């Protein structure tokens, strides 16, 4: 049984750190495929990356139900840290979650299991925060869509390998759909529901 004494701290400067992190995530969402850096540092519990921890401290509160994959949920330190610093309720049912934290991409459940929003409120969908190995090296993906001038290339090594095939469900669902935020250490790339993968090399 771990005690509260082992909790890593939150942001050293709450307001400015949260603002700066919010700016990074917003820029990432506005320019899909671009790699944004998260500057402020916070304590990172267990397997959580720096970027994920900063996003959690910035975006989560008691009004945002969370869903954790088994990699995240199996760490009591991590769950306690989230509870202490964000107060966000952790849900068993992924279909009502505002955010999903995925530590082990290979075990990402089918995207249909998350909240897809409704036609009246498409914003009530789950934002999936996926920790990946790298956003600098790996397979190239060509992305097109709003926020991208023509096409852009994202080099990343992502699990699950078929993430972008799975995200094709966004095409049929629009305006409903799933937004994805990829995190590798302090690098962040957003793949909002409007972004399409046109082609990819190997």
């Amino acid at each position, binding site marked *: 049984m771990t005690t509260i*004494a082992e*909790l890593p*701290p*939150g942001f*050293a*400067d*709450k307001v400015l750190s949260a603002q700066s992190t919010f700016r990074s995530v917003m820029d990432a969402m506005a320019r899909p495929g671009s790699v944004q850096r998260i500057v402020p540092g916070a304590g990172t519990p267990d397997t959580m990356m720096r970027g994920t921890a900063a996003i959690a401290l910035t975006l989560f509160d008691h009004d945002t139900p969370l869903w954790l994959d088994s990699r995240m949920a199996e760490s009591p330190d991590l769950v306690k840290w989230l509870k*202490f610093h964000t107060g966000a309720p952790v849900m068993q049912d992924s279909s009502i979650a505002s955010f999903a934290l995925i530590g082990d991409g290979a075990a990402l459940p089918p995207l249909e299991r998350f909240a897809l929003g409704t036609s009246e409120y498409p914003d009530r969908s789950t934002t999936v925060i996926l920790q990946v190995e790298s956003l600098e090296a790996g397979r190239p993906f060509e992305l097109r869509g709003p926020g991208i001038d023509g096409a852009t290339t994202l080099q990343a090594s992502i699990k699950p390998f078929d993430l972008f095939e799975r995200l094709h469900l966004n095409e049929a669902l629009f305006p409903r759909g799933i937004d994805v935020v990829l995190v590798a250490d302090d690098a962040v790339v957003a793949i909002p529901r409007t972004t399409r993968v046109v082609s990819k090399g190997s």
Partner: protein
Amino acid sequence: MTQHNDQQAQRKAAMAVLAQAEAGEIAARLRNFALPDHQDLRTPENGLVMLRGRAGGDGAPFNLGEATVSRAAVRLASGEVGFGYTLGRDGEKARLIALCDALVQSRDFGGAVERDVIAPLREQLMTRRTQAAAETAATKVDFYTMVRGEG
């Protein structure tokens, strides 16, 4: 378990004193102290709490209004975590209370903090209270009814 309860009671008593003390007084008393390394687990923040009221002893509870509260959490290098809550917007005071709460729990500093910080503050608080009570008591008027009667 008893030890745990004792510590709880001790922390509660310390909190009762610290919450009433001035931030400057706590800081002044802590200044003479060789403080161990510590970090802010939760930096001071302000928020609101709903105060519940009840008219009379058995009235239905109602929401009286909101009060500003500051809170903070501090962790010592040795692992003890202290929490501080106080009415008002003085974040620094909440941080100092959290620091004292952590020190009270620590084996090395618990006694010293109790002796040099909390006991003098408690004494001050008691003096203030008895003084106020005495001033009030001086204005006390005893009413009595003389026995009325024809005889």
